């Protein structure tokens, strides 16, 4: 592929329940540190959840924070951290040639739910309904807040893609760079979902909300005792550049986005379809001109639901059975960060290119026989030396699958 079509990651900005930068996040993943805690939500008993503890005022004023949304605050933090990490001279760059592309599971539920609650304090008299409702709930809000904060005048958009969204934000950034629409992309995914009771209550009604007396053990994908999803907030945005631009400025290159795919099950609102998931993985591999045997790490989507975990294993077995690839899961540490999940989980694995380690899956004390896979990395990191490629799965409701293949950059 010609260099102006090759896209590389040059910066990472993130906030996860167990780390507010890549180094801390990676350290927690290697040391087995969960970020799940007990969280109070409205109308129901406290729930296990992943809460981020980044400083929202590091990159925005209190006034900006008050005006904006939690998703906007997460996005602003991650975008600034990523740009700083990239070493790119953003201040003096053409900001009409930069773009912000953020995957979201949903947006506006948090604001709407809080406003409806507050209106109830005023006998539902709508003259007390805030004039901030619309700018806070438009679907482009998180990305738009980044453009306001950073003076980006190129394109911005949020991509609604359920729990596949983090990868899809990244994919869209790659596409916009390849199209020549932008020269510098800030791309990934965010979620503020824990600040609505509705997501917890809905998963509970679906019998898919995790419960455990020890919150750090509540998120246990593929384990016999798994009983549902731990909802988390989080964000991870990358700076993406065309390879030729990154090389020209001597940028640090975390990895190359070698291939990607996203497709649709067209079968069910909530249930997965392993045949379509497998197709998605194969398509991403084909586009990367790689085979399953070329992949070192398969980072699973596994959320801790009975059927979802089993079905993903069916798909992985079909594609990667006997390939030698190692398997891990990041949600066991951070829960399900929804729109941020794909991007965050990829970030958790990116340092493998440098340290040769594969972070483990925790809380996998008694693996479900239906979820047995070769080379599942459990409890302790595995050192396999040279790691050259990662495939990252993210799947979501309405049958949306997204897969990204990242290759270690070698000149």
């Amino acid at each position, binding site marked *: 592929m010609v260099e102006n079509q090759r896209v590389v990651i040059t910066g990472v900005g993130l906030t996860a329940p167990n780390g507010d930068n890549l180094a801390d996040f990676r350290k927690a993943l290697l040391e087995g540190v969960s970020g799940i805690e007990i969280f109070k939500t409205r109308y129901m008993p406290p729930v296990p959840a992943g809460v981020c503890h980044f400083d929202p005022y590091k990159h925005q*004023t209190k*006034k900006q924070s008050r005006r904006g949304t939690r998703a906007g605050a997460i996005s602003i933090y991650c975008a600034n951290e990523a740009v700083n990490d990239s070493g790119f001279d953003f201040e003096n760059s053409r900001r009409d040639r930069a773009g912000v592309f953020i995957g979201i599971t949903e947006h506006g539920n948090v604001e709407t739910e809080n406003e409806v609650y507050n209106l109830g304090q*005023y006998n539902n008299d709508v*003259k*007390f309904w*805030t*004039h*901030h409702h619309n*700018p806070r709930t438009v679907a482009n809000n998180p990305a738009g807040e980044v453009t306001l904060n950073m003076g980006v005048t190129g394109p911005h958009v949020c991509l609604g893609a359920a729990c596949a969204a983090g990868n899809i934000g990244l994919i869209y950034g790659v596409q916009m760079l390849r199209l020549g629409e932008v020269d510098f992309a800030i791309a990934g995914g965010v979620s503020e979902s824990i600040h609505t009771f509705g997501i917890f209550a809905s998963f509970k009604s679906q019998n898919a909300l995790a419960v455990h007396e020890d919150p750090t053990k509540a998120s246990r994908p593929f384990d016999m005792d798994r009983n549902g999803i731990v909802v988390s907030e989080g964000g991870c945005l990358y700076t993406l550049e065309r390879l030729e631009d990154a090389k020209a400025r001597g940028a640090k290159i975390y990895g190359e986005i070698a291939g990607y795919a996203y497709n649709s099950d067209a079968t069910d609102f909530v249930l997965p379809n392993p045949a379509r998931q497998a197709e998605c993985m194969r398509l991403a591999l084909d586009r990367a001109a790689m085979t399953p045997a070329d992949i070192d790490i398969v980072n699973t989507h596994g959320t801790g639901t009975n059927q979802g975990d089993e079905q993903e294993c069916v798909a992985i077995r079909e594609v990667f059975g006997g390939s030698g690839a190692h398997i891990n899961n990041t949600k066991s540490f951070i829960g399900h960060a929804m729109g941020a999940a794909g991007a965050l989980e990829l970030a958790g694995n990116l340092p493998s290119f440098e340290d040769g380690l594969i972070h483990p899956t925790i809380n996998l004390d008694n693996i479900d026989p239906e979820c047995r896979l070769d080379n599942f990395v459990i409890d302790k990191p595995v050192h396999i030396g040279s790691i050259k490629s990662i495939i990252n799965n993210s799947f979501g409701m309405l049958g949306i699958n997204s897969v990204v293949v990242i290759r270690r950059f070698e000149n």
Partner: protein
Amino acid sequence: MTGEGIRQAIIDIIREIVPDEDLSGIDAEKPLRDQIDLDSMDFLDIVMELRKRYSVEVPEQDYQELESMSSTVNYLLPKMESL
């Protein structure tokens, strides 16, 4: 509520809207928006907070009365002196 009480009530509201700003040196006779970073949405927050906290309505045609601290206090005094 006295004029001073109203002035303090307005300061409390503005402090919540622009928490980063120092409000100690506000000149009562100069337009508030020349001294503080207040945009039109912030201004609507002042109107909303007066409604929520004191049940005071400021109709749109009267918004100009809230230009300076002095004009704001004078405008609100008849509406709030009985509070």
